[in-house]
């Protein structure tokens, strides 16, 4: 059943009359703009072949007030501690300037360092936890304790076994150690070894790379593809090859650091549009076409739109049909980063292009990584043959970076063959379907319990909002006590008031594992008071009664 606060593509779903009042009075955020009811015209109704529900509910006002209160207290104590450190009343553990440099411009006085010293250090034990097994649906953690409040850690030597893994990007469950599954990988390891010791342009192109590239191109339905050794480097090293000075980059507000770094390295002009907001993007495109470059008023050499398939902090899916129609209208290029969406969405796991039922020719540059759904490492860029041939000669990664090592390439080949069904089994399709089922089940149960969840109902990335800084540490620690490993994120990866816990659902999770996690979340949600949602089943059970008698006069 759809959540009553859902607005799908401008069509409001009315289930009961009573829910109208909820919708009218509720203020929720969509696309970064706070709005009550939103009705698009019929123009978008024909672009989307199916409705998808995306919501970004806002918490009640008191939550924001209390969050700021928490940060205020933390800041006051931060200043107190800094004062004590400056006057020698307390030992200094963090990096600081030497005595001789005290008269220079200070290195460590901006807010980020203040925040790191005084707030991050207190809850630092929730990050960078070393694991000592394959990051499958369950994994083993090394137990570590701290004697001086997270400044230093020491390992006790014990391992915490079979912790349920809700943080790894293992969407299709290909991170496995089953000997039968890894037979071909072991064979390639014995044949080629591990090192390439060269770049793509010198002597680092193996037959494995060619095989992998043709397979990727077939998988995505494009003409050609090129693979690189590292996913981050794929973005940051190839965008400078594609655009330069005199070009315009229109990048989404919440793009990943690799895209931002690549855009800045290229030297092109960067303009930012609001997250997934097509009106903002259209306005920028119109201004770009009408006014041209800033001083000379010449036309831009190239206009390129940088978006991601699934945004990993929000769980939202890009509005691809609208972007493609905009790009065709204003003659711009589209660069789609499918790091989280390849393998994870779509009926057969081919990403957002398939999810929206579009043709891969609509997107000019298809980029993705093999780290998330394929259990390997590296990235690819796919598209027209001319584009990929150009990148083979002009990309920094091809010229300077070592190419992908053969066992990793073989792992990707076996995973992709499994997905496409070329290994003779339907295991790939089963995995995609299982991921879809797990995602929907997990999200539905979390909604019913009353948590605030961001993002699209089909995205396997599930951010659960925590808001207050004290709860970040408490949540992660208590979940670990219950043998569940989660990833929590706060400032600066998210806005300062919206810290969250991010769950990554995997096809390898069984229903029992998800139920364990959900029960633990239920308990913890009650104890920590995290169930802020005002539109869920938990807060308005009378609206969801299906067997209520209605008498009509």
């Amino acid at each position: 059943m759809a959540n009553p606060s859902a607005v799908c593509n401008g069509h409001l779903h009315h289930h009961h009359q009573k829910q109208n009042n909820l919708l009218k009075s509720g203020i929720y955020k969509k696309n970064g703009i706070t709005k009550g009811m939103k009705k698009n015209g019929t123009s978008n109704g024909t672009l989307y072949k199916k409705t998808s529900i995306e919501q970004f509910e806002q918490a009640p006002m008191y939550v924001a007030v209390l969050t700021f209160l928490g940060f205020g207290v933390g800041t006051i104590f931060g200043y107190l501690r800094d004062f004590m450190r400056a006057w020698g009343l307390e030992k200094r553990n963090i990096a600081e300037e030497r005595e001789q440099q005290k008269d220079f411009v200070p290195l460590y006085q901006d807010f980020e360092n203040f925040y790191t010293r005084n707030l991050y250090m207190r809850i630092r034990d929730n990050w960078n936890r070393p694991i000592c097994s394959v990051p499958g649906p369950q994994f083993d953690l090394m137990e570590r304790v701290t004697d001086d409040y997270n400044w230093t850690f020491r390992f006790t030597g014990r391992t915490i076994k079979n912790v349920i893994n809700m943080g790894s990007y293992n969407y299709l469950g290909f991170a496995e150690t089953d000997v039968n599954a890894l037979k071909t990988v072991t064979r390639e390891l014995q044949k080629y070894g591990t090192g390439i010791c060269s770049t793509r342009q010198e002597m680092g192109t193996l037959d494995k790379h060619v095989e992998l590239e043709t397979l990727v191109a077939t998988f995505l339905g494009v003409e050609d593809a090129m693979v690189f050794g590292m996913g981050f480097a794929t973005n940051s090293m190839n965008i400078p090859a594609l655009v330069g000075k005199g070009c315009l980059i229109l990048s989404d507000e919440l793009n990943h650091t690799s895209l931002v770094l690549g855009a800045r390295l290229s030297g092109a002009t960067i303009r930012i549009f609001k997250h997934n907001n097509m009106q903002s993007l259209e306005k920028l495109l119109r201004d770009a076409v009408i006014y041209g470059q800033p001083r000379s008023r010449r036309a831009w050499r190239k206009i390129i739109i940088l978006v991601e398939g699934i945004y990993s902090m929000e769980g939202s899916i890009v509005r691809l049909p609208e972007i493609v129609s905009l790009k065709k209208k204003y003659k711009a290029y589209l660069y789609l980063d499918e790091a989280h969406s390849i393998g994870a969405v779509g009926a057969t796991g081919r990403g957002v292009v398939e999810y929206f039922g579009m043709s891969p020719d609509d997107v000019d540059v298809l980029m993705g990584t093999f780290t998330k759904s394929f259990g390997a490492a590296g990235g690819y860029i796919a598209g027209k043959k001319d584009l990929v041939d150009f990148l083979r000669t002009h990309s920094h990664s091809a010229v300077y970076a070592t190419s992908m090592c053969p066992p990793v390439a073989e792992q990707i080949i076996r995973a992709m063959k499994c997905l496409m069904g070329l290994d003779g089994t339907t295991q790939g399709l089963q995995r995609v379907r299982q991921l879809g089922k797990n995602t929907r089940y997990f999200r539905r149960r979390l909604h019913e319990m009353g948590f605030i969840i961001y993002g699209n109902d089909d995205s396997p990335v599930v951010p659960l909002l925590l808001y207050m800084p004290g709860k970040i540490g408490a949540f992660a620690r208590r979940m670990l006590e219950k043998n569940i490993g989660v990833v929590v994120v706060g400032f600066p990866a998210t806005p300062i008031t919206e810290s969250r816990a991010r769950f990554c659902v995997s096809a390898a999770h069984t229903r029992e594992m998800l139920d364990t996690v959900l029960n633990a979340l239920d308990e913890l949600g009650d104890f920590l008071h995290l169930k802020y949602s005002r539109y869920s089943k938990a807060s308005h059970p009378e609206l969801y009664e299906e067997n209520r008698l209605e008498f009509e006069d």
Partner: protein
Amino acid sequence: MDIKSMKYYLYWLYCQFELITCSYLMEPWEKLLFYTFNITMLVMVLYTAYIFVPVHVSTAFQFFLNLFGNQHENTVSIVK
């Protein structure tokens, strides 16, 4: 049984206070400082209320009583 759930509820309230004001993250001496400050402020506010509120309430009550009392006497005199 009720005492137990009451105690658990109070413990839960204390945990909420700790989480909201970030005192969950503080080292023990910082917590001591923070709680001392808070309790001192609370005690001062309560003491001020205890001393001043009854005096103010009774003064206000007398003021309103006089106001309505004078009015009553006025009407009586006009009728006479």
